[in-house]
């Protein structure tokens, strides 16, 4: 498991895809790969109201990543210091094994370089004290980035706000 987490507040997400574009622009990607995806379900009626679900899907940086296990060259690897799963373009031979291995579609194909590309939690930005590109630009600030022990805090705060509204 990565020592970081990305948490999306679906209630606030408006599905604008600024995160998707920010991710692509930060990695300088061509048409095709989307290392972070937003999966849209709806709109559909939920009771009397129309609702849409937008689910933010970056790489989950698994505890035992199948992509890493499957990679024949060692290009896909998990950093021991923080659990971030990255792909080394120098070692990647473009065999797409990681793409087939991942159940979540996290590694993507870059047709320009002929190599795999994926969410690396913008580790260069994190190291410079910044937030990942997707979190930085989000217009509604529905994405949170932090360490796992911060999750309960964020959830507690959301719950308190929701209760305050009801009363």
């Amino acid at each position, binding site marked *: 498991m990565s020592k970081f987490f990305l948490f999306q507040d679906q209630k*606030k997400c*408006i*599905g*604008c*895809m*600024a995160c*998707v*574009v*920010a991710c*692509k*622009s*930060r990695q300088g990607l*061509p*048409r*095709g790969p989307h290392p972070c995806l937003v999966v849209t379900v*709806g*709109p*559909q*009626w939920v009771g009397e*109201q*129309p*609702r*849409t679900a937008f689910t933010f899907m970056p790489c989950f940086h698994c505890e035992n990543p199948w992509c890493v296990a499957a990679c024949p060259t060692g290009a896909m690897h998990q950093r021991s210091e923080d659990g971030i799963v990255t792909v080394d373009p120098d070692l990647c031979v473009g065999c797409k094994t990681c793409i087939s291995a991942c159940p979540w579609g996290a590694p993507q194909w870059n047709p320009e370089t002929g190599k795999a590309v994926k969410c690396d939690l913008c580790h260069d930005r994190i190291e410079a004290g910044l*937030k990942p*590109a997707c979190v*930085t*630009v*989000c*217009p*509604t*600030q*529905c994405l949170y980035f932090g360490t796992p022990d911060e999750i309960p805090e964020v959830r507690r705060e959301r719950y308190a*706000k929701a209760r*305050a*509204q009801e009363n």
Partner: protein
Amino acid sequence: MQEQVYSLCFMCSVRCPIKVTVDNGQVQFIQGNSHVPGIGDSICPRGVAGISLVNDTQRVQSPMIRSGPRGSGQWRQVSWHEAYDYIADKLKQITDAYGGRSVLLGERTQLSTHVSKTFLRAIGSPNHFTHDALCKGSLNTACRSLLGYTDGQIGMDYANTKHLVLYGRNIFESIQVKPVRQFSEAMEKGARLTYIDPRVTVTATKAHRYWMIRPGTDLALNYALMHVIINESLYDGDYVDKWVSGFDALCGFVKPYTPDWAEGETGIPAAEIVDFARELASQKPHVIFHCGYRCASHENEIYFRRSIFILNALMGSIETPGGMFFKKGPAEAGGKPVRKLTDQDLPKPSDIRFDKVGTPDFPTPDPNHGVAQMMPQAILNEDPYPLKALFAYRFDPLSSIPDTNYTRQALDALDLIVSIDINYSEIAWYSDVILPESTYLERMDSPQQANGPKPQIFLRQQAVSPRYDTRPGPVILQQLAERMGLGEYFPYTTMEELVDWQLAPTGFERADFKEKGFVAYTDQKLLWDRKTGIKFKTPSGKIELVSSLLEEAGYPSFPAYQSMSRPENGADFRLVVGRCAQHTHISTQNNLYLNELVPHNSLWINAARAEELGIKDNDTVEVASENASGRIQARVTEMIHPDCVFMLHGFGHEVPRAERSYQKGVSDSLLMRNVTDMIGGSPALHETIVSVRNAGEKP
């Protein structure tokens, strides 16, 4: 070497403050300017995608002169010198024969609009117009008729509102970053959202209350709301007594417009209308009926826009925290505004405008913006006089003025079409000369006088040097004016000189913008006292429900409501258009990143109606109006009213060099009728009836 440049976005017209990270002369990343309160690092997808605009190889890369017939795509790459010579010679022939008034200049409103106005005044033409009429002409007129201010001088306090009411104003898809961020925070704190639209949008899916209203009947809903508010005395009595004139006339007028009556018109249950009015009254005055943009867009739009302002007036929400407010200028803070070229002593054109705005024929729209969609008939009928040359400055009449074939016919009657553009837009492709402008990231621009509760000045600072042989628009116009012997009104040769000239009276300098991208006249919020100090600019100094602007022009303030017709033929629908979060009107469809997300438009059609017509999801359908037809993918859904079909505006591009967007989807402008709200000035964009049939079944 990495540096941060504070600038202003221009992927749409909003001009959000941005921070551009530049590394070795390349744009690395674009995000919001967090020095500006309420924005943080946020930016919308179009703003982030600015990086692929600047690096786009499918842009116009150097001046071009047409070498084949118009629209043939045969071009000669030329020097700036040759392009200026060509234009100046042609223009001289035209103005010698037909006078300066035969020249038109249309543009998308922008920071250097004062430069284009000056250019035209120097030629001796009154014919400057902007895209504003197409966007919000009737809104502007309604606002002036009631408050004495233009809509541009009104802001909304999203952060503190308790209830936001939106009529087709798709706030979460037509994104302005600051309002979106502020209002989503307000929603977390309990603000309510009511959304009214015949189609379910993302905004509808976030709303507490959504009404799928019958298309074109928003006005009926508003009259019924007024009826309930007055009948049950739910209005802000003190505010109305102090600031509203014509209240008695309104009371008499709305008597017959009961919620039961409105239910028949709109399809919204009467009891819900009553509940809604009561809920809003309990939250007044911290409520906003949002006055623009989009929504029911018909020939009587002016009265619908007025009804929104009237509801705000009844709630006492104009110049109130959590409501609307008037933007305060530098004078309110004891400062001096940014100077404009139009502040100079310029020749006054003696002719009326091409669109006759400001004459008894068309008295009420704002002559400062003009009415763009009158251009084709003015050219073709030579009414009021012959028009022979058009400058299209990042304004595309072929995709934005309804009825493209008619517009193209009019363009054919011109002797000269010059485009100042970044992309190969439809109009650039149809021009005689294209003058390529540098993108907003590659140029400094005129300072933005940003009025508001705290008046400020923003500066679009150059982030990177131009990728191609392009120049900033104000420099292009200055150089062209120079070549035509009209240089005396343009006291600059570079953008830096122009900015310095403009800033001179303010006491601020260019260097002051380096650190944050903007300067403020004051750190205090300027609000007028809503009990005693609101300065309405109407003749009566009040909110004029019975409007002197309209009545003096011979128009009634309260004409009887006329029901919107339902399409009667079984295959007929009202065409409704709108936006998505990933595109700006017609200008971003060819952007690498944005095109990938939304490559074409589809036709939303109600599931039950589609079944009757034998149309299934993803079928190709033919959609036809009286003007034209096109083939488009059907999106069969329960999320749209049975009376209408919907498509995104701005697709169906016909320029082969803009490869990504070439022939993707259908252009709504191609299908639409060119009809206008003759009191307000907006085109009636929802007045077109289309028939839809499955393209697989040949008749």
